[in-house]
């Protein structure tokens, strides 16, 4: 962005400054650390100058908002036109209670729903399965059948809200239930908008709620791509997630690298089944984390956008600009929150909110201050939502687009993170792609090494976490945490027994049998799953049939 001669001059001047002024200063008072490094293992320099971005070409590398390679944002007017979607992830206990929380959040000005499911639902077990014991309704709402889903969205017009569902291995079943609930509300699938997470690869890597082996899982995912492209065109069919990879301990650069590598695997799988890239790629969405290192995070989002655009255009030859755009949801970093002095978490979340907004997110969930202790209470969820509203309405950062562009530091970081990600993706390609690299444990190993290093830095005091390993106080146990009544499990089991007694079981059996046959063939499974859901076949029954046909995934553990 600068002419060569000028850059050379600046470089010389910088060297001169380092050798004189800085050398003298350091001789008198050394800096706090011999080297400053960020999570991505990038050495952070004392000061950045035009010499650090000498190679940057404005039109090629940055361009304008809404223009390839989208470094500055995917929409032409960004938040000047429309604020990001404020979407708090919520759901617990029964469908009835979660329904109440959703209505509360919508009244508070939230603009989209985000459904959290309990673990049995996420792993395709009914509430009465032995492994569900103690887990029903704990980390999200328990959904066993269409009945529960009808209650969950009771009084919420599904053509008016967009709904994000954090569901992966059984994503097809929950999407089918959503479509069936809409049907009952008299809404056709083409009117529905929302997202299913549907990202199985990161479950194998980091989150652990997998069911089936890789191949059938990829088939279910591409079945959804195909079904939605003709029937539910406004639905985001996958949310390729770096969030959990980061929570598992990866660096920012690894978050970009492994997420995009997963994305590549999905695109390849879909193309292999005969889909045209421009038919499904515009519905791919992403999900990233926001941690505390503000500039590294902003650079991460920008690097991810630029790199994905190049991948889609050059590697997959996508023609539609919509296929090139990386649209993403952000959640603030759960693992950055401390159980100690939980009020401090409000400040952390505010910084992370800024990072997400300065990084150009399309939607945001802000964590509540008490999440290192328990599920958030209504009060703390409100503070988290207000944090977003303050950044949006009072901070002024939304008034211009990509305000950190042109910062020597941020541009230099953006390029370095992109380069690191490119290197990782090359390595993963060599190993045979993301799925194979995961089966071998390569990705997990890289993440665990980072996680262990981070923990050791905290324990040695090299990394300061305020309130945890420095600035500690003795404190009382916090009061008023949300508790899920253990009775929820019993209630849910009872409901399930009633359902099994009252539905037309012959119809259920027939639908499940049809599904089994389809699973053994090459057919798209979505229509069969929707049919099974309509008959009030349960999630566990549907996944059970698929478990019998597909088998289950075996975890790769490398420590």
């Amino acid at each position, binding site marked *: 962005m600068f002419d060569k001669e000028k850059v050379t001059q600046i470089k010389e001047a910088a060297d001169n400054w380092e050798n004189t002024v800085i050398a003298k200063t350091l001789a008198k008072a050394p800096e706090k650390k011999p080297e400053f490094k960020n999570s991505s293992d990038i050495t952070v320099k004392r000061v950045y100058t035009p010499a650090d971005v000498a190679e940057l070409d404005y039109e090629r590398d940055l361009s304008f908002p809404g223009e390839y390679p989208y470094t500055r944002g995917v929409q032409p007017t960004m938040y000047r036109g429309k604020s990001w979607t404020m979407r708090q992830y919520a759901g617990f206990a029964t469908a009835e209670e979660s329904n109440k929380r959703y209505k509360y959040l919508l009244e508070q000005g939230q603009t989209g729903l985000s459904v959290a499911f309990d673990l049995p639902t996420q792993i395709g077990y009914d509430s009465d399965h032995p492994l569900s014991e103690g887990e029903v309704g704990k980390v999200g709402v328990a959904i066993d059948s269409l009945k529960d889903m009808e209650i969950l969205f009771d009084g919420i017009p599904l053509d008016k809200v967009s709904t994000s569902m954090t569901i992966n291995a059984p994503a097809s079943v929950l999407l089918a239930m959503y479509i069936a609930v809409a049907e009952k509300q008299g809404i056709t699938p083409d009117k529905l908008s929302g997202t299913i997470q549907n990202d199985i690869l990161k479950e194998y890597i980091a989150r652990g709620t997998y069911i089936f082996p890789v191949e059938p899982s990829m088939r279910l995912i591409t079945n959804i791509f195909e079904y939605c492209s003709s029937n539910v065109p406004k639905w985001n069919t996958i949310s390729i997630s770096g969030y959990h990879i980061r929570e598992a301990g990866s660096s920012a650069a690894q978050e970009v690298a492994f997420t995009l590598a997963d994305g590549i695997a999905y695109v390849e799988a879909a193309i292999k089944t005969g889909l045209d890239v421009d038919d499904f790629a515009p519905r791919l969405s992403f999900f990233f984390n926001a941690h505390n290192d503000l500039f590294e995070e902003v650079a991460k989002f920008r690097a991810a956008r630029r790199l994905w655009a190049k991948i889609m255009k050059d590697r997959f030859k996508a023609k539609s600009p919509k296929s090139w755009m990386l649209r993403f949801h952000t959640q603030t970093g759960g693992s950055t929150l401390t159980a100690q002095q939980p009020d401090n978490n409000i400040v952390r979340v505010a910084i992370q909110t800024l990072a997400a907004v300065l990084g150009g997110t399309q939607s945001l969930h802000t964590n509540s201050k008490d999440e290192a202790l328990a599920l958030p209470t209504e009060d703390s969820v409100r503070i988290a939502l207000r944090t977003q509203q303050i950044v949006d309405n009072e901070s002024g950062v939304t008034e211009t687009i990509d305000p950190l562009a042109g910062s020597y530091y941020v541009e230099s970081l953006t390029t370095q993170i992109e380069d690191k990600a490119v290197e990782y993706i090359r390595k993963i390609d060599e190993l045979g792609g993301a799925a194979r690299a995961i089966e*071998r444990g390569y990705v997990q190993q890289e993440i665990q090494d980072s996680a262990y290093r981070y923990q050791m830095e905290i324990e040695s005091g090299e990394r300061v976490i305020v309130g945890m390993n420095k600035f500690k106080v003795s404190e009382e146990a916090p009061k008023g945490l949300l508790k899920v009544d253990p009775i929820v499990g019993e209630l849910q089991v009872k409901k399930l027994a009633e359902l099994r007694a009252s539905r037309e079981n012959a119809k259920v059996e027939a639908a499940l049998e049809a599904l089994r046959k389809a699973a053994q063939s090459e057919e798209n499974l979505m229509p069969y799953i929707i049919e099974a859901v309509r008959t009030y076949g349960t999630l566990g029954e549907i996944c059970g049939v698929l478990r019998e046909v597909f*088998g289950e995934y*075996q*975890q790769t*553990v490398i*420590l």
Partner: protein
Amino acid sequence: MDIRAGLQSGDKRACARLISMVENEDEQAIGILKELYGLTGKARVIGITGPPGAGKSTVTDKLAKLLRQQGKKVGIVAVDPTSPFTGGAILGDRVRMTDLSTDPGVFIRSMGTRGALGGLSKAAHGAVKVLDIFGMDYIFIETVGVGQSEVDIVRLADTVIMVAVPGLGDDIQAIKAGIMEIGDVFAVNKSDRDGAERTATELEMMLDFNIRSQYRPPVINIIAKDNKDVDKLLEAVEKHYVYLVNSGELSQRKKNSIKNEIIDIFKYAMVKAIEEKSQSSSFIEQLISDTVDKRLDPYTAAAKLVEEFRSR
């Protein structure tokens, strides 16, 4: 806890405790083994080895399940390396055998190599004996096929299964270098992957150059995670056993195994005695410093040491 009674009444705690005691070289444990030695020799011992990532634990898991269907009791000793720096280890083979852990007819034990001189082989021998006494019909010993100590362990098996996998490239070379000779049955796992045919062919070719008796080790393609053709693998193991019995090689192997074990125990006792001695006696100190100063050479020093031991 009364370990003898526990062992005979099928108490897994007693069995587990005795294995620990053997591993920790507890005198009392050796006493129990001496006493119950007559009860050993009934179990079939099967070694499973191969490069990391070949899927050995999954193969073991599936074979064990097949044997359970036949009503056999199965013991498994899974060996993983101990960190030479900290003495700690992460033993992760059970991850692949989760459903077996609650099967009353299965006993799984993870073991670290612990790095002691000949220690592992001794501990593994001990564990096999304990499981044998405990009434297991089949005992699997699973190790990573890289070092000499693994080869030693596998030597105490009646049948050794070498698990290979396509696409690990140089591993075939490693197999050739070390373990080719001791494989009685070869399994090419993950045989749905590219390169499976080539791996099998290469193994067959190596076996062509490696004829050691009228028995030729078979090469079997399997997909352990899908339980595909694992029954064929088990069949091959059984066939090998029949061969061992009919050819008289079994008694030869048993004899060799016992010989190795006696020598191992002896060697270990000697090394230990020397170590103990070198802490207390100036004799060894003197030998060492003489050798350092070139007044002696290591050969002469060792000869003097042997003499010293003999004379006592």
